[in-house]
């Protein structure tokens, strides 16, 4: 019998937040896996623990207990700096409310993840312009974020997430601040990225997102239900 290696494996995951005498179990117990090229919708209400789960999968938040393996790599056995390198290579984050750097242009925001890579200026420009075109903002590459609409800013966030060609895209409520039409455009964009080979994991409370995903995981009170 051969052992199947999943892209992401989560074993016995627990996360407790401690604030003085009060402790909150954000994640009580989770065990699941995600395969390569899946489009996962992690659904749950506010406070269900879905954002904590996303940050743990993104090597940003140390779990209290349990293991998370990405490409058979035990994330939290790595040093802080190794986890930073891991994020740079493996993960593309799309944050809630876009989170663009306001004093950098669209092009500069998109090039940001490449600032710590060894690529040449020419290649960085080429790669960034390519993804900006892909999200449909080729004509607005030199604008500042506040000169763009909400949907356009979300597209810049997507472009920034994919510029380093990471295998995994983690999106936290990507449609949270968008109208339904723009939300649909963004979900279609994420779907097309998934079809191009990216594993997309979206954390959301929006039930419509499920329709774009290949699989959904329900998170409730710190536990998950596939």
């Amino acid at each position, binding site marked *: 019998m051969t052992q199947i290696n999943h892209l992401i494996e989560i074993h016995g995951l627990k996360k407790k937040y401690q604030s003085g005498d009060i402790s909150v179990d954000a994640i009580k117990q989770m065990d699941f896996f995600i395969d390569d090229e899946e489009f996962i919708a992690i659904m749950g209400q506010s406070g269900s623990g879905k954002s904590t789960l996303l940050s743990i999968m*993104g090597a*940003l938040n140390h779990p209290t207990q349990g293991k998370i393996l990405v490409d058979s790599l035990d994330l939290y056995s790595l040093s802080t*700096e190794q986890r930073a390198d891991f994020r740079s290579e493996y993960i593309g*984050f799309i944050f809630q409310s876009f989170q663009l*750097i306001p*004093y950098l242009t669209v092009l500069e925001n998109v090039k940001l*993840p490449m*600032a*710590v890579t060894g690529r040449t200026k020419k290649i960085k420009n080429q790669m*960034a312009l390519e993804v900006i075109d892909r999200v449909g903002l080729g004509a607005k590459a030199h604008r500042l974020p506040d000169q763009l609409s909400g949907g356009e800013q979300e597209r810049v966030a997507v472009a920034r997430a994919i510029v380093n060609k990471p295998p995994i895209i983690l999106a936290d409520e990507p449609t949270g601040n968008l109208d339904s039409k723009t939300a649909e455009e963004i979900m279609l964009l994420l779907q097309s990225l998934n079809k191009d080979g990216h594993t997309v994991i979206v954390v959301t409370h929006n039930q419509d997102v499920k329709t774009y995903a290949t699989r959904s995981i329900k998170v409730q009170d710190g536990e998950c239900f596939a």
Partner: protein
Amino acid sequence: MKLHNISFGNIKRRKDKMLFLILGLVIGISTVVTLLSITQTMTRNIEERLNQFGANIVMVPKSENLSLNYGGIDVGGVSYKVREFDQEQLKDIKTIKNSKNLSIIAPKVLGPVTVKGKNVLLMGVLFEEELALKTWWHKTGGAFPEKENEVMLGSQVASLFGFKIGDTITLSGKPFQIATILNPTGASEDDAIIASLGVSQRLLGKQGKLSMVEISAFCQGCPISEMTLQIAEKFPNAKVTAMKQAVMSKMQSIDMFKSFSLGVSILVILIGSLLVLVTMMGSVNERTREIGIFRAIGFRRGHVMQIILLEALLLGIIGGIMGFVIGNLIAYGIIPIVIKDGAFAGINANLGIVSILMAVALSLLASLYPAFKASNMDPSEALRAL
């Protein structure tokens, strides 16, 4: 996109805060530059005055049993068996290694003469040299002696004998006209009759002899002690002394001002550093969200530190240049007010380099803790603030 683009971008975006930070550096550096310029001008000013005013090397005959009473020489005694210099020998002084530092050489002959039955000190001088050396000699009227039959009286002598300008005084039986009387100087010349060197040598019976030589050397950077040794080598019968007291006391005043300047500079720099630290801390706290994003997209802790320290470096360079320029402008304006006859010593390029380095070091040091704090920010905590 490189890390420095982020640093430059942040500086451009937070202009008001960055100006405040630069202001802290400018205040510190300009204060140091101003105080150093004032100190430098004071030192130069005093050195120039020392060059102008009076001797700083005195050459007297070696003697075991006689002391003269001018410049530490006692001629009031009874013995005149003083081993004097030959005037001819004096030209050898120009052959010392540091001869280019010699400014004024004022030889004199000293001895007692009888005036109205009393012994009075007669000092024979070369008027041109002596007046150049003793710029504090001020006449009460008349003119400084120009002819061989003219003499000048010290204030005490004039007052004791009731002489006036234009009177005739008889020295060793020869009549001389009193060309002028000196204002009191508080020194030995108050009690002396001053005549030309040649006449005095004849009157005292010391033709071709010298009792002492006062020398003024250019003081700026000149090795007075070494010159003293060089002169002593040429004149084995002479006791050559560097008159350091005047220099020492004035330099002590400067040293005190230097210490004061140093104290003020340290205080201002500490305040400036505190300003940089507080501004940088504020900047880092404001950028929690940004730093969270940087860390999430794969920036290492070192990268975050680099961004903050690069900003500090750039601001340090700007603050250093501005502080140096403003410090010089203040010094230029303030020196004529605080130092009498003082003029701005000019721009010191080395001080410029030191100012910039100091501002950069200050800015980096004060930013080290904020940068460390930023780099150690937990990205999940920072992102929770998103």
